């Protein structure tokens, strides 16, 4: 029996919204009447070494500034899809990359989710924050790795009359130490990059 379309967008409490996370027809990306859409999002938190100031004791101490940005957009998929993001600073770079969507399905279907995360820096590179992959079906903790992380998971998305939510998230982070001369910030060498891909099987 056919399932009547909900959406076109939904959230956790309402299946009939005009904005939010798009609701799709299972794994059918071929329909022009019901285009397959997803949300991608990137959140970046950058801590930048800006220079120095003289402390009360007369010694130089580094000064920093923080920048937080979030971008999210709704994209149309005509098949497999992915998101790639990157960020850099001269001190600490933390980034979250996500893909999300709702779906309705008369029968279960499978997707393959591939993740690639990387942190790079100079010889003082360290892990300032959690770095790992997880999704809405993760039950035994995230898949962690530093400075690189890559792999894939295969997920079975069960049949659902009501819109069912799926998301995949990749957190990446890199940090480098202050330079010996805290008044001379390094050039941008604390980098992170992330790629999330979803393939319909």
């Amino acid at each position: 029996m056919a399932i009547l379309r909900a959406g076109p967008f939904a959230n956790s409490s309402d299946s009939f919204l005009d904005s939010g996370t798009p609701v799709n027809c299972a794994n059918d990306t071929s329909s022009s009447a019901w285009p397959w859409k997803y949300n991608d999002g990137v959140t970046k938190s950058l801590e930048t070494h800006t220079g120095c100031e003289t402390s009360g004791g007369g010694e130089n101490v580094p000064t920093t500034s923080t920048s937080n940005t979030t971008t999210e957009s709704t994209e149309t998929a005509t098949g497999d899809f992915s998101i790639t993001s990157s960020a850099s600073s001269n001190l600490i770079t933390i980034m979250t990359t996500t893909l999300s969507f709702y779906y309705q399905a008369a029968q279960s279907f499978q997707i393959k989710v591939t993740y690639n995360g990387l942190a790079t820096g100079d010889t003082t590179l360290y892990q300032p924050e959690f770095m790992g992959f997880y999704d809405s079906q993760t039950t035994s903790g995230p898949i962690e790795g530093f400075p690189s992380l890559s792999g894939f998971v295969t997920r079975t998305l069960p049949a659902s009359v009501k819109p069912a939510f799926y998301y995949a998230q990749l957190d990446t982070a890199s940090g480098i130490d202050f330079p010996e001369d805290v008044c001379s910030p390094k050039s941008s060498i604390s980098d992170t990059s992330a790629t999330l891909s979803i393939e319909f099987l």
Partner: protein
Amino acid sequence: MANIEKVTQGALAKNKKLNEIINRLNPLLNIEVNEVEENAPLEIEYSDNNVVLRVPSGGVPEGFAEETLDVVNSDNTAGQRVFLTKAV
């Protein structure tokens, strides 16, 4: 169905009323039904040879409107269905 032949011999042939009935009945054995446009009137055309019924096509019941809605087909493909809807 073949027409009923008129009676031309014997005692029954003397009864003109019988052949008159046969003449009226034969066209009914050749009824032709034609679907015409939605707003046309229902018409019945009677001739010596046949009867033609002209019936307007289905259309939408009064007070209802057609709406095309998206569905997930049983094989997970996207499809559409036409629903008759009416505000309550």
